[in-house]
């Protein structure tokens, strides 16, 4: 597939934006850089999420009890299997392949149920406590453990969402589904969306469960929760095996920290997949663009690109989801593009999808005083059947008459649409981004309407 950073919905040509759906839209080639934070389920106002948290924790504590009762190999094996959940595609893996923990680490985790008296008697209160007690269990493992323990729910959720948005499904055999009745892993034959290239099953995860960093996390515990003057050795031990032994011997501190985090639960919110820059920052970037000289002296072209990219990505959100900044070379010249997924969220975006088959919108950045024919040709070469035939040049000044004529000729001859946005347009976009009276996307629509009015009937 030639579109850049394809997502599941893009592959199947389903016109939705990330804002419109309840789940995090998975990428096909890489993971979503977020993690399931079980604390979000605990603090959720939804009884369903609370119940899922309870079930997840009870299942994990049951695993610990099984280890205590002597079935150590069995418990160990189950924990190893639960430690990686590839189907959800969360984390930082570039190839969607994660690794499970080793048997030794699993033993270390399960041994908490014998070494710490409070856990031995009452079990864990939050699964994230593992992060504070063992070295090998980070946010990715916590997330994978949670997803695996809730896999049965995620299967139903995925089927439901796939039906809602007409995402194709196929029959797959899903291994490692945790069965609550037997407290063991089983394989299930279910109908799920799959990666079109690898045919690996995909599980969708609700956006409301995702955070970059768990609410209960090791770094914060060490930076703020312990009293440094009391025990200097803790600092020396941080991040090492010593950390674990200290925490295990001082479990009360962890409980106090967790209790404090529970009290401040109102501050705990899920992280969005994209965070637009604030209005003030957008205005500063615009002012910097205005002051920037044209050309490439003192890397002005690079600075221009670095300023325009976050500005455009933020102002066009949520109508257009930002896909990627991409560099490419064309005839020896380095070109920077911004790519947006066309989720067809407005009438205008639906129109350019229908007219120009625009699946991804290519925005080319040109910090030049005057756009030349070669610049238009560069973008034109990029407008292929995968991206569609609609492109935008963001440049400093309006196109010279001859260049505008050349874009009209491209439309007349090949039905390709290249429109230009200038500093003035960015200014208007920034103004409406601030005033909220109109959408910044409408500035692109305005340029498009002006372009089409100039086209021959």
């Amino acid at each position, binding site marked *: 597939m030639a579109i850049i950073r394809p997502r599941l919905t893009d592959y199947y040509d389903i016109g939705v934006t990330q804002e419109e759906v309840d789940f995090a839209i998975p990428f096909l080639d890489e993971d979503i850089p977020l993690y399931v934070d079980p604390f979000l389920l605990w603090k959720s106002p939804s009884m369903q999420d609370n119940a899922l948290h309870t079930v997840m924790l009870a299942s994990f504590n049951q695993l610990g009890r099984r280890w205590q009762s002597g079935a150590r190999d069995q418990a160990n094996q189950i924990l190893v299997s639960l430690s990686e959940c590839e189907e959800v595609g969360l984390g930082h893996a570039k190839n969607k392949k994660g690794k499970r923990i080793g048997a030794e680490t699993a033993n270390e985790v399960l041994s908490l149920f014998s070494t710490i008296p409070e856990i031995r008697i009452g079990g864990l209160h939050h699964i994230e406590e593992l992060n504070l007690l063992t070295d090998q269990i980070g946010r990715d493992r916590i997330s994978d453990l949670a997803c695996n323990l809730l896999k049965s729910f995620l299967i139903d959720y995925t089927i439901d969402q796939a039906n809602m948005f007409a995402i194709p499904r196929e029959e797959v055999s899903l291994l490692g589904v945790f069965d609550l009745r037997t407290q063991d892993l089983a394989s299930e034959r279910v109908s799920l969306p799959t990666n079109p290239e690898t045919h690996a099953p995909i599980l969708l995860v609700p956006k409301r469960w995702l955070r970059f960093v768990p609410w209960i996390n090791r770094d914060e515990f060490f930076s703020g929760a312990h009293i440094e003057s009391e025990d200097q050795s803790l600092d020396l031990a941080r991040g090492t095996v010593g950390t674990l032994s200290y925490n295990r011997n001082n479990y009360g501190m962890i409980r106090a920290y967790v209790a404090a985090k529970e009290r401040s639960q109102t501050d705990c919110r899920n992280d969005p997949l994209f965070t637009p820059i604030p209005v003030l920052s957008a205005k500063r970037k615009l002012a910097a663009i205005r002051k920037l000289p044209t050309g490439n002296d003192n890397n002005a072209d690079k600075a221009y690109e670095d300023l325009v990219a976050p500005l455009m990505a933020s102002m066009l959100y949520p109508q257009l989801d930002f896909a990627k900044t991409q560099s490419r070379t064309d005839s020896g010249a380095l070109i920077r593009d911004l790519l947006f997924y066309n989720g067809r969220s407005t009438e205008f975006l639906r129109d350019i999808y229908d007219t120009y088959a625009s699946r991804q919108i290519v925005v080319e950045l040109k910090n030049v005083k005057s756009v030349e024919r070669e610049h238009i040709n560069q973008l034109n070469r990029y407008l292929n059947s995968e991206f569609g035939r609609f492109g935008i040049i963001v440049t400093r000044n309006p196109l010279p008459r001859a260049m505008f004529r050349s874009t009209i000729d491209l439309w007349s001859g090949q039905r390709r649409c290249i429109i230009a946005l200038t500093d003035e347009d960015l200014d*208007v976009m920034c*103004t*409406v981004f601030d*005033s909220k*009276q*109109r959408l910044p996307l*409408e*500035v692109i*629509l*305005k340029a498009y*309407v*002006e372009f089409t009015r100039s086209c021959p009937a």
Partner: protein
Amino acid sequence: MTVESKQVDMFEKTDAQLTALVTEIGSLSKSKPDNPLNKFKIRFINQALAQANTLLDDQHRPIDGFEQFTEELLPSYSDVLIVLTQYVSALEGWRSANAIKVGYNWQWNIKGNRARSTEPPTRFRRGIDDE
């Protein structure tokens, strides 16, 4: 030249709307002249302009070829203010052209001689005042 009574009704309504809009948009235009108007305001202004267009014949139309604002072209407060003031002025021209003096009073020149008073005209009326 005579007018119908319902045209006078429409004039009174439209003229009041456009005059109020000039005041409102004028004050907004002072602080944010280049800000685009939102869709609600444009639709409302376009409604008032459409009523004015039904009254104004080619002779009284203020801007050749202009009918209404295009929402997609993001007209700014200052753009809209210019057009609205032109329309208010054109409506006054139309009123002046349709006012007649009866005794010491000015009245609308309504078909069937129905008496409806109006203010004295403020414009030179070609073909009427130069007779």
